[in-house]
């Protein structure tokens, strides 16, 4: 019978069967037939979201399919569908959804985490640095004023200090610049504050990803807060760079130990449940000083916060070692504080004597004085606590001293010019 079949038909059938067999076997190989669907992934509305989005935005469907949230049965609608009165909601293919869920939606499950976040300097204070309280509703302002670590004046009233550069650079620049990072604490129209996605990148929401320093390094880098660079210089960063691939990044939250991570990342020290210390999204609870400020002062609960951090350190280091690190770092901070205060006094004196205007960033010397603490002072202080000696020395204290000298000389020159009438 087979002999009577035309050769082309036999070859055609053979090619088809062999190729389909190869495809079948390939899909059975580990990872060989990996597709954008995984077991237990449940999408909403009879797979209506996935039906369209696997074509419109296939990457996010694939990312979400790989996530632990998807494996836990969290559906698209659980985060994206919002109440009818939500100002961020839109009608979309029969659903009322928000395109970008806010902490209000995250809080449906992660109540403690969002509450801790909203009471941290990552929330309202981050945006206040740009606009003060201007963008806050009364409720959002009240919530932000509850933050113990909010910068306050001598009378205890919160000071909504804003950086004048935000207005000077204006809307042509700031959306692509400072707003990008500071929007981690931007007030939302739905009454919530901030954006969890800044760190928990969508749509995989990977625990491993958010524990790695690159996530924090999205914003904590550059001349004004080079924590990312300092970490890379530190022994902790070297351990991460050289051995991090062997670490157990996916250990459940709150169960991390040195066996999972033999050296810390940013998250380990500042947020993770590690050893005897519990997990927190209030990033200030292990910090003892306002290092970001021009002249650093103790944070509220400074002593307790330092003990919290030390508890983390003791997982690997002896008590004398840890105390010594803090002692050295505190003395760098005192040194920097004194020089920054000296520069501040010089500038204030010039303003008081009407040698320069009080308008910020209107004179070269005001830029120089800003760089002095904002770049060099901060860098030296951060690096002292994070153990990045080159950043204490050559990126911190040395340029700070040089800048202070420049400010002093320029101040004398300006005073001489002012006296002679040359500045008028």
């Amino acid at each position, binding site marked *: 019978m087979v002999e009577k079949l035309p*050769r082309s038909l036999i070859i*055609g059938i053979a*090619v*088809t069967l062999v190729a389909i067999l190869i495809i079948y076997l390939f*899909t059975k190989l580990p990872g060989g037939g990996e*597709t954008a669907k995984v077991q237990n992934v449940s999408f909403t509305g009879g797979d209506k979201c996935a039906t369209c989005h696997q074509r419109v935005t296939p990457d996010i469907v694939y990312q979400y399919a790989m996530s632990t949230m998807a494996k836990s049965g969290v559906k698209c609608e659980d985060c994206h569908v919002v109440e009818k009165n939500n100002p961020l909601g839109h009608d979309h293919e029969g659903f009322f959804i928000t395109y970008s869920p806010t902490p209000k939606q995250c809080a449906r499950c992660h109540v403690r985490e969002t509450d801790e976040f909203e009471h941290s300097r990552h929330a309202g204070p981050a945006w206040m640095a740009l606009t003060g309280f201007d963008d806050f509703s009364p409720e959002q302002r009240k919530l932000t004023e509850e933050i113990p670590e909010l910068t306050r004046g001598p009378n205890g009233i919160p000071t909504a200090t804003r950086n004048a550069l935000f207005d000077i650079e204006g809307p042509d620049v700031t959306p692509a610049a400072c707003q990008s990072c500071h929007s981690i604490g931007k007030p939302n129209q739905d009454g919530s504050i901030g954006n969890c996605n800044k760190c928990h990148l969508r749509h995989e929401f990977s625990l491993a990803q958010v524990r790695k320093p690159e996530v924090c390094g999205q914003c904590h880098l550059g001349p004004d807060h080079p924590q990312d660079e300092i970490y890379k210089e530190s022994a902790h960063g070297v351990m991460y760079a050289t051995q991090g691939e062997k670490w157990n990044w996916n250990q459940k939250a709150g169960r991390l130990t040195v066996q999972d991570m033999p050296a810390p990342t940013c998250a380990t020290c500042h947020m993770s449940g590690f050893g005897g210390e519990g997990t927190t999204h209030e990033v200030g609870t292990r910090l003892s000083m306002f290092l970001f400020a021009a002249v650093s002062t103790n944070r509220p609960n400074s002593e307790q916060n330092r003990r919290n951090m030390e508890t983390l350190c003791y997982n690997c280091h002896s008590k004398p070692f840890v105390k010594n690190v803090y002692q050295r770092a505190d003395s760098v901070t005192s040194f920097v504080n004194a020089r920054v205060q000296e520069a501040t006094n010089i500038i204030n004196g010039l303003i008081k004597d009407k040698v320069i205007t009080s308008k910020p960033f209107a004179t070269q010397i005001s830029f120089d004085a800003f760089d002095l603490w904002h770049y060099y002072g901060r860098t030296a202080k951060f690096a002292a606590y994070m153990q990045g000696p080159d950043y204490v020395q050559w990126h911190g204290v040395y340029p700070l001293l040089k800048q202070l000298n420049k400010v002093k000389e320029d101040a004398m020159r300006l005073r001489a010019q002012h006296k002679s009438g040359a500045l008028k």
Partner: protein
Amino acid sequence: MSEISVFHIARIKLPMEKNRLVMLLVGVNFVFTGFDVALSHAVNNFVPAYEWIPIIYAPLGAASSFLLALKTNPTKPLTFAHIILMALGIAVGVLGTAFHANQALNPLGQLTWIWLTFASPILAPLAFSGISLVGLYAVVEEIKDNPGFLKVPGIGIFKAPISRDRHFLWFVGLGFAASAITSIIDHGQYGYNFYKLIPIAYGLFATGVVISVALSKEWSRGDEVTYFWTMIAGIVVGLLGFGFHLSGDLGGTGQFSVERILVFAPILAPLLYADLGVLGLIVVGEEK
């Protein structure tokens, strides 16, 4: 008007001489392929700029093909310009394949299945090379009673190991092979099901049949019948796929949306099978 007999199974009336009809088919293919590429490249707003190359090239290839199809006695400059354009078309296809292949690698430079399925269709640009080859051979003449002696107008005579007709068969066979591979990769994004296996199985089967026929010195009656019905099936599968893709693009809503047309199932892609089926019938047809 002209008429061809396909293995004495069917007689097909053609609106024009067979060779000119092939040229017309080439022109139509350039139009559809150019439109399809324009839709695909519009998704990323034609960035990088070299995504414009096939879109600019397609109308030029189509224009020379249509002009030659409409003229009974084309001028030498037109024929020569067409040959140059077809050579360029082959290069455009190869270059595009290189660009698509580079894009298919993941950020670590590795080729993984999931990246391959979601990447730009790696073999799709070869459609330009395939159409251009057919367009080129449509102006090539075979020296009478000397199979394989091919005269390229204005350039010279070349000796090929196979006849001009066999070249066309190979083009059809390789076209089916590229379409089948593309079908396997594209449909692999979210796993296979019965409907997705139709174009895959058909494409593989048609590849086997056509290449087996192209390789055979003599064809049995069974081979001719198999070939004929395989080409007819190609037309059916192509139209069926067009329906499925259109249905997918409507997203179950019945409403037309430009966004869906751009990023959902490539609406014209299944018609490639129908296209190859028609070409496969014409090239083996004996002109009466």
